[in-house]
């Protein structure tokens, strides 16, 4: 699929070009991470206790808010219409765009988690597990998110509405992600089941996401 990769590359280029999408997502992530302790108060024990949860939520939010970008611009300037006249099935178009989003947003966020971790002084193992779960979980974020992005294309609401629509879909991911971390951090208990469940969730979203968002897009092109 050459056109798949062309689309992917172009989306990545645009993501880099357009006001450093990546930088802002990371910035938002770090800021949320920084806000919580300021608001909650500086008790280190308390913080390291809530750290994994907060980091997950922060990641979720900052990935979410960049979701709108996936289709919005292309839709408004008519690019999506033209892409639809190519032989690349709409399902693959959405897949390419979700993948681009994962590469340009979710992945960098995950890579910045260690830094955030030190700020909450998480111990190394917990931090590693956290990153691992995030790597898997963010796939679900990008691919399920594209559905909401497609659904909310016509509303001028932007990121917030997207968030509301997809957050329920993310709950399982969030729950099993954090559960896996918390189990590993306090030994009695086997993290594998929940981790495997997490993986299967991501796989499922890989399968469903592109298809569903393509369906959603078709109606909007009128």
């Amino acid at each position: 699929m050459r056109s798949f990769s062309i689309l992917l590359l172009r989306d990545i280029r645009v993501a880099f070009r357009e006001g450093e999408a990546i930088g802002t997502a990371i910035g938002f992530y770090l800021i949320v991470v920084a806000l919580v302790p300021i608001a909650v108060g500086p008790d280190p024990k308390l913080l390291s206790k809530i750290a994994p949860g907060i980091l997950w939520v922060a990641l979720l939010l900052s990935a979410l808010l960049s979701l709108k970008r996936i289709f919005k611009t292309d839709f408004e300037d008519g690019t999506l219409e033209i892409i639809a006249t190519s032989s690349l099935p709409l399902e693959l178009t959405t897949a390419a765009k979700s993948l681009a989003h994962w590469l340009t947003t979710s992945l960098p966020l995950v890579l910045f988690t260690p830094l955030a971790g030190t700020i909450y002084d998480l111990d190394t193992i917990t931090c590693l597990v956290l990153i691992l779960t995030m790597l898997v979980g963010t796939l679900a974020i990008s691919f399920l998110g594209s559905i909401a992005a497609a659904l909310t294309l016509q509303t001028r609401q932007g990121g917030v509405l997207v968030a509301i629509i997809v957050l329920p879909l993310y709950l399982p991911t969030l729950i099993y992600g954090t559960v896996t971390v918390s189990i590993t951090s306090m030994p009695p208990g086997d993290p594998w089941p929940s981790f495997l469940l997490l993986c299967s969730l991501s796989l499922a979203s890989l399968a469903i996401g592109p298809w569903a968002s393509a369906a959603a897009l078709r109606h909007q092109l009128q």
Partner: protein
Amino acid sequence: MKKQNLMQKIANPKFFMALTDKLLPVITFLAIGIVAIGMYLAFFVAPVDYQQGHTVKIMFLHVPSAWLGMMGYALMAISSLSYLVFHHPLADVSARSCAIVGAVFTLLALITGALWGKPMWGTYWVWDARLTSVLILFFLYLGIIALRSSIDDEALASKQAAIMAIIGVAILPFIKISVEGLNIPWLGLNLPSWNTLHQPPSVLRSGGPTIHSSILVPLLINALGFTLMFFALHLKAMRNEILRRKIKSLKLAEIARIRSYESTIANF
């Protein structure tokens, strides 16, 4: 051409380039020299703190960079203001350079501070007022840089960044208040310092420094040296920016020529 006063002279980019061309090496040389002296005093003359051990040496890097991080912002705010008022490009160039250099020094303060925190407080980071407010300062720098770089139209970007910088200057008093609290008797306002582990200022405080001269002297020398270094970097960055704009304006001139060239086709 009418007689200019010194300020106007310096504000003229050509003259500025010529001037800094001479000045820059001198400043750089001085900066390196003084920092060398300061560091020598710091490491071989200043006494080893009985409780902090050798880690106290970090202070000589940490404190100046912290000060300069804040000074950098002040300088940027001033440049920005004068840009909005006088529309002089040089002011914008200065503001832009400040953002980058200032951010670097702030980052330096954060890193050295964090490294110092490990032995002192047992952790790299605590959500203490001073640390947090400096972190915010850093975010401000980043935000301004991001804003500038995410607007295509450069003229617009400069103005927007300037406004942002001026609004953000509120952070400087906040860095102070958060640690020292705020006490305004005639307002009946007495704000306790917001939770802090960090050293209260002992040099820049009303009522004179409170630390022993054997540490104060090398500290101040270092501070002087780093300040010079700051300006060296700042001037260098300004020169680069000016050159970059020269190139860009040449490109634009090219486009203008082309637009008129296009007319020759259009008129056929």
